[in-house]
């Protein structure tokens, strides 16, 4: 329990690390890197210990069902931060009392009686943050399987990225700041992950965004980099409209409560009208679209490659982009009920996810830059996760997040290692090639990670992707899915095919053929290769944590462990079902992956389909499609040129013009009226002053308002006239009002 109630120490450590590096980093012998590594290491150890405790505790408390048991699952919720949960817990506690048990501090493991017991309780602790009106808003931590999982993933990836960076950005102009922001980035993500309420989630969400801004724009001397940083931030802000509005809608829907547990329990129980949940979830989907790079707000993600490569690894594997997926998972009842996921065949979330998965994968084909290939690959894989959540395969989504973190981090860091060797170029078509011999460690780790991404049996990607495909529930013979999402299955299979193919293309360009760059490349040092090896190994084997239950021959404790420990139990999680393992689907998905690899292998390695080479130059139809892909479906053009251009240009200028001319003009008019019961009576002044004002206004570049020029003749008596006229008018108003 100590670990669960004091888990706030982990983000606090990273925040402290940020401050220490910022203020003392430059004076340290290693310029602050050592502070970062020590702290993130400590955070990782603590996260592992928390995870261990969680597993131990869950083991002590086998799952239970029924309202009493589910209520009891909430016994460790601080009643001050979640009133609804506290009520539900009271029901459960009552039962527990009858059964002769004590709550909270002494987990039910002490009792091994015949009755059903409860596992994976959320532990929620909070303190009063502030009060506003009659609302008390708390800040705290929500610890359950989901957050513990992310704690471990984030700290682990962050640790490896830190180690990798000490070599990779060695001698950088802002080395210290770089590490400071890595720490802050990690801290923000951990803060977000542990959020107890949605308000806290917004805070973490935005902090993550601003850290990514700082890191993407790390080399801000060059305009493209700062442009990319701005684009990332602004696109995310667009999505944040959805987040803000969604959180507000849900806050009122949950009876003025930000608490995640309250919200989830009420959504589950039907305490919130379906329409509100629908609006809330649609708003939040906008936020997910921007943060997790879903169509059509994905455009910032490939540009974000302008940042240092380790940062890309961190952003894509563990921190920023998974925030959207995590949020959906965290507020799952809202989406589950709001979008009616169960028993349906299409909904917004799954649709967006599937489109992203497929179209993102297609874009990866035309990239020359190896990092951009990986970026679109991330877009596509995030599409997989979002689809999984959309079809009700919660566990599969989180599982894929987990495995994807390892192999995608490995791929990014591998790309970094390659560019480190090739004079900091990421252009695999023009500056790489034939590196398999020169950089064996990089090559092998990259190959393993690629295979995992492509879903080659038995690497981790296979297991998680297969679970998602099964989760769509539309493949013949699949049991126990939440609905039948046929379209999604097809699109995901196509995406999987594309994934396998474009990754093979990458391998070909980077590691085979002749070296096309300058100088002599060399294998990277141990601080770079060690993280690669660790990540590749994890990427290879991580699948075993959630072997399907169909594998009866394994001992009981070896199957669906991930599901067992990570998936929340209790009233705050919807009653989802789990699709069973379908051998036929597994075979199909492996075949699809192999087909992708095979076709790409034949095309690139064996030079088969020679007729297809250069097709785009010859065939107009092919050229048309290629053009669309190269221009990224013209989204960038639409956003940057059309929308932003319009707002920054004509619209802003119009607003400014309005202010300077219309409003001030109106003021002039009032001024003119006030100057006299009529300019028309006295022509002298008319000609002298007004004409002068008009002429002056025309010729004056300084933009001095005409009213003041009119009154500001410097003639005392005109002031006097104005003054007394004003007095007369005011007195008139006064008399009328009082009278």
């Amino acid at each position, binding site marked *: 329990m100590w670990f669960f109630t004091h888990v706030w120490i982990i983000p606090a450590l990273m925040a402290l690390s940020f401050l220490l590096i910022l203020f003392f980093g430059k004076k340290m012998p290693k310029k602050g890197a050592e502070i970062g590594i020590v702290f993130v290491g400590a955070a990782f150890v603590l996260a592992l210990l928390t995870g261990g405790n969680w597993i131990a505790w869950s083991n002590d408390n086998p799952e239970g069902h029924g309202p009493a048991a589910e209520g009891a699952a909430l016994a460790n919720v601080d009643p001050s931060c979640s009133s609804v949960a506290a009520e539900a817990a009271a029901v459960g506690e009552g039962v527990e009392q009858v059964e002769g048990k004590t709550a909270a501090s002494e987990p039910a493991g002490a009792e091994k009686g015949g009755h059903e017991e409860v596992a994976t309780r959320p532990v929620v602790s909070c303190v009063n943050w502030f009060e506003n009106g009659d609302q008390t808003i708390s800040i705290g931590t929500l610890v359950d399987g989901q957050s513990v999982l992310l704690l471990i993933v984030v700290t682990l990836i962050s640790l490896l990225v830190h180690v990798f960076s000490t070599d990779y950005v060695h001698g950088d102009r802002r080395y210290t700041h770089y590490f400071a922001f890595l720490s802050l980035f990690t801290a923000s993500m951990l803060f977000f992950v542990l959020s107890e309420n949605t308000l806290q989630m917004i805070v973490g969400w935005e*902090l993550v965004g601003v850290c990514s801004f700082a890191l993407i724009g790390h080399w801000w001397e060059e305009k493209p980099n700062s442009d990319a940083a701005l684009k990332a931030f602004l696109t995310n802000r667009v999505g944040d409209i959805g987040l803000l509005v969604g959180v507000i809608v849900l806050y009122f829907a949950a009876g003025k409560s930000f608490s995640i547990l309250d919200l989830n329990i009420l959504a589950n129980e039907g305490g919130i009208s379906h329409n509100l949940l629908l609006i809330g979830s649609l708003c939040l989907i906008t936020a997910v679209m921007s943060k997790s790079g879903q169509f059509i707000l994905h455009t910032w993600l490939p540009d974000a490659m302008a940042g240092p490569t380790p940062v890309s690894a961190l952003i894509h594997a563990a921190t920023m982009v998974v925030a959207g997926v995590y949020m959906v998972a965290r507020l799952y009842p809202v989406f589950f009920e709001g979008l009616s996921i169960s028993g349906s065949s299409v909904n917004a979330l799954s649709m967006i996810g599937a489109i992203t998965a497929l179209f993102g994968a297609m874009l990866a084909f035309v990239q020359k830059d190896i990092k951009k290939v990986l970026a679109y690959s991330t877009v596509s894989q995030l599409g997989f996760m979002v689809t999984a959540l959309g079809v009700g395969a919660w566990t599969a989504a989180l599982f894929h997040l987990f495995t994807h973190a390892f192999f995608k981090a490995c791929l990014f860091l591998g790309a970094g290692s390659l560019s480190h060797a090739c004079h900091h170029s990421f252009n695999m078509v023009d500056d790489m090639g034939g590196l398999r011999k020169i950089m064996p460690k990089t090559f092998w780790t990259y190959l393993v990670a690629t295979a995992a991404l492509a879903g080659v049996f038995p690497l981790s990607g296979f297991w998680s992707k297969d679970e998602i495909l099964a989760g769509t529930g539309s493949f013949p013979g699949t049991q126990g899915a939440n609905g039948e999402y046929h379209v999604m299955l097809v699109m995901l299979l196509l995406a999987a095919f594309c994934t396998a193919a474009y990754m093979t293309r990458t391998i070909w360009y980077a590691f085979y053929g002749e070296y096309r760059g300058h100088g002599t490349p060399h294998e990277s040092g141990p601080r770079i290769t060690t993280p690669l090896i660790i990540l590749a190994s994890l990427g290879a084997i991580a699948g075993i944590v959630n072997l399907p239950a169909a594998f009866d021959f394994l001992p009981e404790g070896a199957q669906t462990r991930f599901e067992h420990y990570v998936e929340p139990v209790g009233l705050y999680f919807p009653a989802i079902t789990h699709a069973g393992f379908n051998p036929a689907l597994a075979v199909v998905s492996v075949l699809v992956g192999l087909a992708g690899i095979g076709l790409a292998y034949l095309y690139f390695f064996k030079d088969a389909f020679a007729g297809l080479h250069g097709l785009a130059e010859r065939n107009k139809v092919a050229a048309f499609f290629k053009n669309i892909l190269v221009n990224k479906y013209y989204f960038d053009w639409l956003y940057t040129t059309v929308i932003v251009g319009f707002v920054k240009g004509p619209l802003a200028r119009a607003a400014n013009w309005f202010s300077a001319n219309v409003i001030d003009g109106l003021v002039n008019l009032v001024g003119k009226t006030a100057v006299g019961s009529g300019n028309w009576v006295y022509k002298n002044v008319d000609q002298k002053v007004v004409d002068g004002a008009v002429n002056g206004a025309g010729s004056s570049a300084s933009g001095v308002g005409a009213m003041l020029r009119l009154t500001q003749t410097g003639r005392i008596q005109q002031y006097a006239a104005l003054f007394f006229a004003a007095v007369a008018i005011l007195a008139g108003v006064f008399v009328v009002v009082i009278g």
Partner: protein
Amino acid sequence: MMNFLNDWGLVLTIFLPLAGALVMMAIPKQSEGAIKLVALGAPLAAAAMGILLMLNFDYGDSEHLQFMVNKNWIELINSNFILGLDGLSLPLLALTLFIVPLVVIYSWQHVPNPGNPKAFFTLMLILETAMIGSFLAQDLILFFVFFEVTLLPMYFLIGVWGGEQRRYASIKFFLYTLFGSAFMIVAFVALYFLAKAPTGIALEQLRALGGSYADMQAGDPLHSFGMQALTYSGAAGIAKTTAIVIFGGMFLGFGIKVPMFPFHTWLPDAHTQAPTQGSVILAAVLLKLGTYGFIRIAIPIIPVAARAWAPIIGILAVIGIIYGALGCLAQTDMKRLIAFSSVSHMGYTMLGISTLTAFGLNAAVFGMVAHGLITGLLFFVAGSVKERYHTLDIKRLGGLLISAPKMGWILGFATMASLGLPGLAGFWGEFPAILSAYDPAVGLNVVLFRTLMVLAAVGTVLAAGYLLWLYQRTAFGTPSEEFANDPNITDVNKFEWLAWSPILAGIVILGFFPGLIFNVAGPAVEVIARTVGG
């Protein structure tokens, strides 16, 4: 101690700066050292007094006025010298007491052309007295006097120490505000004549005030300028249409000061032409007089009219948010851009106010303080940039992070705070205001306010846009040849550090502990929200 504070605490806080100004007049022009010492000493003394007050403030009872002073003043019109401090005044008092010494410290080496520190600081001290007085006055006439007194020093600060078009800007500022306050005083006088003693519990409360109210009967003419008395009266006996007209007068007075959308055109000129110190004080404190007036005076005293006006205020606020942001995008001058951003940010505050709910009003109070700190800091930085580059043309700037890295970081911090980054103060003024619009006071049009909520949320994107574009164009990139090797461009000096670091700390602290303001102002605004039934 408590007795002393009760009798003298507020009076001293208000008039210590003025005393400083008097002392200053006795110092010969040449001894700049002594002048600066007095200029710093007087606000510090006032701040010390303020801290004493805040330490002795009963936070459990922040909805009631404390340290009340009530003396006869103008007997003929029953206007009294009433001062009081409650949870609504406290944050703004603290803001004023906090900002002015920092402005003086900043001025240590930065007395703008044409110099003459004696006059400059004298005006500053008079201004401080007037500002503090406005936040503490509990009598309409007293408030009005302080409110108007702020105009003169500001007029001279802009008109004498300002930029090239200072005369135009200062006169525009002066006339605009005077125009509004003329209507405001008419409204006040109308209240004096028309307000009647209420019935029921309010009558009991009114009688408990003592003095001429002690034996009032329901329906008696109130003939009072006391804010408390008028609040208890709650515009009893004023016909609704009359009340709406009266509110209109106050709306003009306060709305111009805020400034609200169609009345904002004085602000960019005044800000751009004012010396740095003037801009800082204008943005940090003077604009708040308008919003404060709405919360303290207009809404509780004539709640009926407030409800009628609320949708208009809300709409204008949101137009201000979007429109100010668009205006920012078109600016080429850094200071002017920041000035326009004030229009946008004060829009959030006004949106919060227009909901007439405790949540919204509280957000508005927070927004005022946050905007004061953040925009104050932005103007400080802009002033220092101007001093080094002799231009604020965004096109010509660039590479600030290279020329003066620390200043670049501070500018970055301020922009982030200004665009409402959570964890910094700006967010807590913005998000709760948006949130409160979802659920406005009972009887207001929910559909309208929810639409406003969404539009206000769109405003956050525009805010991010103009602020980040500003930052990109000024701080990122490499310095142009013009300024690349300019020896004038130095990093933050020690006076700037002294003046800025408390603001930086304040922004972070308020960001992490929003309760510091929410909890104090909460009970006070709740009472006000109850008077309007929100």
